[in-house]
């Protein structure tokens, strides 16, 4: 059956493959996984180390490695999504595609679907391989690996959706830079929120919540962290009192359901805006 959204999604995936994006990412990721797994395998071999200490170190290092992968995914999603519409318009490819009997919404959503598939595939493949490497090296496995990977993929999809919206109006470079700046601002906003909560400062808390609602990437990252933390590690962290303030690699509570609903609504809203913007765009 001929469904234009799927045609465009397939085209987006094929383009990533033909432009050797998938190959480059795969090779680099495998190298990183091999190196980090080797590093993890050194933990149990350290002098006078107890199994509990290996577990603690492995859990914290796993969160750091997850942060690296989520960063790669977020930045990669932005770099790929920012030129996806703007690049086609600038080059002229869109001039040949859009007069065909295909709606602009179908073109945009096809691109989103293709990119979302690539992001989920990368998050799942790289995450599962890395966690397998860590488990083989140390015997440590985080409590909820699948949910963690879903949060990491969701973070990439959120940023990709934002870059796609910007791509309907702004040149690739400008859209990409804006999306990245907002990503890092949200990260700092998350740290501010953690500090505000420890010191009970309402103003800082509100700024942090505002940034987390505006750009939900950091909120989703904290959802990923929480599902990587074993209960005993979490207990130790909570016992640290004010010393834990502002640690960007610590999540004390799971994400509220209302916030997850907000993230879904946020993506739908951004896509609605992107469709409206693209429909009204003169080419």
């Amino acid at each position, binding site marked *: 059956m001929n469904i234009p959204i799927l045609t465009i999604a397939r085209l987006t995936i094929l*383009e990533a493959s033909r432009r050797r994006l998938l190959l480059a990412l795969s090779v680099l990721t495998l190298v990183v996984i091999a190196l980090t797994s080797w590093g993890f395998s050194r933990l149990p071999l350290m002098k006078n180390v107890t199994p509990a200490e290996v577990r603690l170190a492995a859990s914290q290092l796993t969160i750091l490695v997850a942060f690296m992968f989520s960063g790669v995914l977020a930045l990669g999603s932005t770099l790929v999504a920012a030129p996806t519409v703007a690049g086609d318009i600038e080059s002229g490819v869109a*001039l040949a595609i859009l*007069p065909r*009997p295909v709606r602009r919404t179908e073109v945009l959503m096809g691109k989103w679907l293709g990119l979302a598939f690539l992001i989920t595939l990368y998050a799942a493949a790289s995450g599962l391989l890395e966690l397998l490497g860590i488990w083989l090296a140390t015997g440590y496995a985080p409590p909820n690996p699948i949910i963690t990977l879903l949060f990491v993929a969701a973070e990439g999809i959120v940023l990709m959706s934002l870059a796609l919206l910007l791509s309907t109006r702004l040149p690739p470079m400008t859209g990409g830079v804006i999306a990245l700046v907002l990503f890092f601002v949200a990260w700092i906003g998350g740290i501010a929120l953690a500090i505000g909560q420890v010191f009970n400062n309402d103003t800082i808390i509100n700024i942090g919540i505002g940034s987390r609602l505006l750009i939900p990437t950091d909120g989703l990252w904290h959802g990923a962290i929480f599902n990587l933390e074993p209960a005993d590690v979490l207990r130790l962290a909570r016992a640290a009192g004010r010393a834990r303030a502002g640690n960007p690699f610590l999540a004390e509570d799971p994400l509220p359901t209302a916030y997850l609903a907000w993230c879904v609504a946020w993506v739908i809203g951004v896509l609605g805006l992107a469709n409206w913007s693209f429909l009204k765009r*003169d*080419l």
Partner: protein
Amino acid sequence: MQLPSTDSQKLNAVEAADAASLAIHTQDLAKRYGKTVALSGLTMSVRRSEVFGFLGPNGAGKTTAVKLLTGLALPSAGQGWVLGAPIGDLQTRRRLGYLPELFRYQGWMQASEVLSLHCELSRLPRSGWKTEIDGALELVGLADRAGDRVEGFSKGMQQRLGLGVALLGRPDLVLLDEPTSALDPVGRHDVREIIRELKARGTAVFLNSHLLSEVEQICDRIAVVDHGRVIATGTMDEILGRDGAVRVRVTGLDSSRRTELASYGRVDDEGEWLTFRGLRPERVPELVKALVTQGGRVYAVEPRQETLEDRFLQLLKEEEGR
């Protein structure tokens, strides 16, 4: 309860009925980009099965008009119909072929893959794709490059590919925006032949071109557009006013009696050369006799065929003078 229709609704119904029998019909179609007027009140009709030339200087609004007709840009005012449906209609776009002025196709794809993608987007039956793709590649002279990546193509080859893309599925209307801008003389000749073939099989062609000689050779009717509106439209004969002109080289004429020559048509005085416009061929001997009677020494008498370029420049000059 049905409300009584207003006059404007009646008018629109009549226009829509007329538009259905035409390949393109626009009524006061306008486009503004901020304060810049790209197209101001374009009214024109293109019949089915005709080759229609759309001429104008740079910035006249030609490409804007094509973009409005294909739905790439939204009109600021006015109305337009393509193949009987309002412009932008999704179903009608299945019967539309378009070669953009800025032609670019996915460089990472093979030529045959680009055509295959457009077959898919045009919702052509999958069973007919191979025939369509092979036919298009053959027609535009790229049959031996079907498996090559587009990024390795020259500009001319990409334009040929674009023409192949525009002709997929035997469209009823083909819009070609400067289709030979990147082609060599052989390529231009090929495109002219393709356009003639399209006309022969009943396809309407809307040709946006700077190459006036090309337009003159293949177009049934033309419109000249300037500053976003049509300043002349008609068949080639109507536009060129082919009622004859004669160029005469003559010396020794009494300048005070030159006004007497006005009875032989409008005179363009270029010193020794005089051009008499609107003069029937049978009156040429009479003109020569009159010149000799006035003391003139006639060295040459040349029938003059006005070219589209002459007429085009004249029309623009007249427009500037208004």
